[in-house]
């Protein structure tokens, strides 16, 4: 017989030890990756470019004289660089992503495929109108869905993101007031639980922001709001469901009072996903609301944009909506721009962006909406609310739930740091969750709760996924209540430990620079 000539005998090794530093700094599948400026070179390229025809230059005296300083990588190096970097990111595709108010739901891949159809992706925004009829029809169909789901009068599709949509709504309110000769109305009322973007937007448009307090059960103080109404009030900006995850029961009553006092109601639609298909904001007296397509309608967040923030308008504000927009005339779709707006849209407040908005996001959102349909969207909000309430009730014995007794929550569950051990903070719970393999919930927002933890599971999580997450958060929460000091230095298992944000802000390094060679000690 031949006796195992290779000498290969599987062995288990010792179960302990082995945590020493590696030569590369890598830890098996956890790979370190240098910057492109450190691994690339100015002579390398990953793109083969066809030879240029020989012609005399027409650059005049503008030709570049200096080097740019851009490193290049060959294709295999580039694919590896970006693949390795990607593995240092948490993502919805990897697990539950409970960021409250951000709505991190599954991003269907059908949407990606649809947006990449050459008829949409390879289409110029200034192409002759007859060559882009299908694209205009997509915008028109999506607009119809948005208007119908909200029971509003019209929708402006061009705003590029939620905050941009807010700006759109506020500018329409301002234009409407000016048209009425009431430009002196300068005050916008904003509940103290609002997104920080609301006051920023109002201030940008020249309004003065007045805070409206919250009640003990986490809603707008309706009486305080009514008391503040008057001839100087332009309107209110209100989020519904609000940032505590609660439905503003009095919104209709508030809208009626605001209208009676001559103001307009802006609704921040960031949380529309909790009620889509089940409640129509138009039925609550809203005059304008932005819809984050990247939240409610699942267009990908992409590591921070691009978003898309169409704004639906009531009849009162429709005439002031921005350009451009799509209209159907005699079976043909047309783009209403500056040229033709004068005819029957003379009150439009103007253009907010070059071109027509986030077409790539419209296609994705329409694909999502068509997939769900009216019945599916109703199920979406119901499951989102069910999941959030399940999390709330499963965890309220562990973490303090300041509005737990205010009734059911909507799409997100709010907790505070009230019962953590002395010296332990929301940040420690968040970083502890990272070691459990989760992205943390939204922390320190809304500001009305100390050490807020806002958990939004979304409807695309299974019960099993929720149960595991609840178990993890219970475990971390109990450790924070018991004063487990290991939490103070968490995360321990992530690609990086806690990062020094103070250093980053005190001595900002915002671009790569060639390392300066160490200055040799002056020779004696």
């Amino acid at each position, binding site marked *: 017989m031949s006796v195992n000539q290779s000498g290969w005998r599987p062995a288990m090794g010792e179960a302990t030890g082995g945590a020493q530093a590696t030569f590369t700094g890598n830890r098996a599948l956890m790979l370190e990756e240098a910057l492109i400026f450190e691994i690339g070179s100015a002579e390398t390229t990953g793109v083969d470019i066809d030879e240029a025809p020989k012609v005399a230059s027409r650059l005049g005296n503008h030709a570049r004289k200096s080097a740019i300083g851009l490193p290049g990588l060959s294709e295999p190096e580039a694919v590896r660089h970006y693949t390795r970097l990607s593995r240092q990111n948490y993502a919805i595709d990897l697990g539950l992503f409970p960021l409250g108010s951000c709505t991190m739901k599954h991003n269907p891949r059908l949407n990606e495929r649809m947006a990449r159809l050459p008829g949409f992706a390879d289409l110029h925004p200034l192409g002759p109108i007859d060559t882009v009829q299908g694209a205009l029809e997509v915008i028109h169909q999506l607009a119809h869905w948005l208007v119908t789901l909200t029971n509003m009068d019209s929708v402006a599709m061009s705003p590029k993101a939620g905050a941009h949509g807010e700006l759109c709504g506020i500018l329409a309110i301002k234009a409407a007031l000016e048209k009425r000769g009431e430009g002196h109305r300068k005050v916008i009322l904003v509940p103290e639980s609002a997104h920080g973007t609301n006051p920023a937007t109002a201030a940008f448009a020249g309004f003065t922001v007045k805070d409206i307090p919250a009640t003990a059960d986490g809603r707008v103080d309706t009486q305080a709001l009514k008391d503040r109404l008057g001839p100087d009030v332009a309107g209110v900006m209100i989020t519904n469901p609000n940032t505590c995850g609660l439905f503003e029961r009095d919104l209709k009553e508030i809208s009626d009072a605001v209208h009676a006092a001559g103001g307009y109601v802006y609704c921040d639609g960031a949380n529309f996903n909790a009620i889509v298909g089940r409640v129509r904001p138009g039925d609550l007296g809203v005059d304008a609301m932005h819809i984050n397509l990247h939240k409610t309608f699942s267009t990908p967040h992409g590591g921070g944009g691009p978003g898309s923030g169409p704004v639906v308008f009531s009849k009162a504000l429709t005439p002031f909506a921005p350009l451009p927009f799509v209209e159907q005339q005699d079976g043909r779709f047309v783009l209403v721009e500056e040229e033709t707006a004068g005819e029957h849209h003379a009150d439009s407040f103007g253009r907010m962006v070059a071109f027509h908005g986030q077409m790539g996001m419209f296609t994705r959102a329409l694909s999502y909406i068509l997939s769900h349909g009216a019945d599916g969207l109703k199920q979406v909000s119901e499951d989102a609310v069910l999941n959030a309430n399940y999390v709330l009730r499963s965890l309220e014995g562990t973490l303090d739930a300041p509005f737990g007794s205010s009734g059911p929550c909507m799409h997100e569950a709010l907790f505070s740091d009230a019962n953590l051990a002395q010296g332990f903070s929301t940040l420690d719970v968040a970083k502890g969750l990272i070691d459990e393999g989760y992205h943390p919930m939204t922390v*320190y927002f809304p500001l009305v709760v100390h050490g807020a933890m806002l958990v939004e599971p979304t409807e695309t999580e299974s019960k099993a996924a929720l149960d595991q997450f609840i178990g993890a958060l219970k475990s971390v929460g109990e450790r924070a209540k018991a004063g487990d000091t290991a939490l103070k230095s968490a995360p321990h298992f992530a690609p990086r430990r806690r990062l020094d944000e103070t250093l980053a802000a005190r001595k900002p390094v915002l671009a790569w620079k060639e390392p300066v060679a160490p200055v040799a000690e002056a020779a004696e």
Partner: protein
Amino acid sequence: MSRYFTQEHEWIEVDGEVATVGITEYAAGQLGDIVFVDVPEEGKQLTKGDDAAVVESVKAASDVYTPASGTVLEGNAALADNPALVNEDPEGEGWFFKLTLRDDSELEELMDEDKYAAYVARL
């Protein structure tokens, strides 16, 4: 020389006509690591309660109000390079700006050291 305090946690130390303004140790502690300070320019006219300076930590930006009216003599240039001075020595080297006072009587409404200590103890 005497030192007064505001409910917004500024301190002001008066030496003849000239006063020095900063934020209290309590305020610096609440803000955490200070990363940036924007101080007023020389010659700027301030009225009591005006936004006079900005102090930023990593996660918060706060306005600093002047406790008294007057004309700015100088801002603390050292804070530009070393904002950490506000954490290290808030009521000394970490001062924000000096001004010539317009109206001494404004100081009467402010707290003295004992009153401020009692005020902070209640927060």
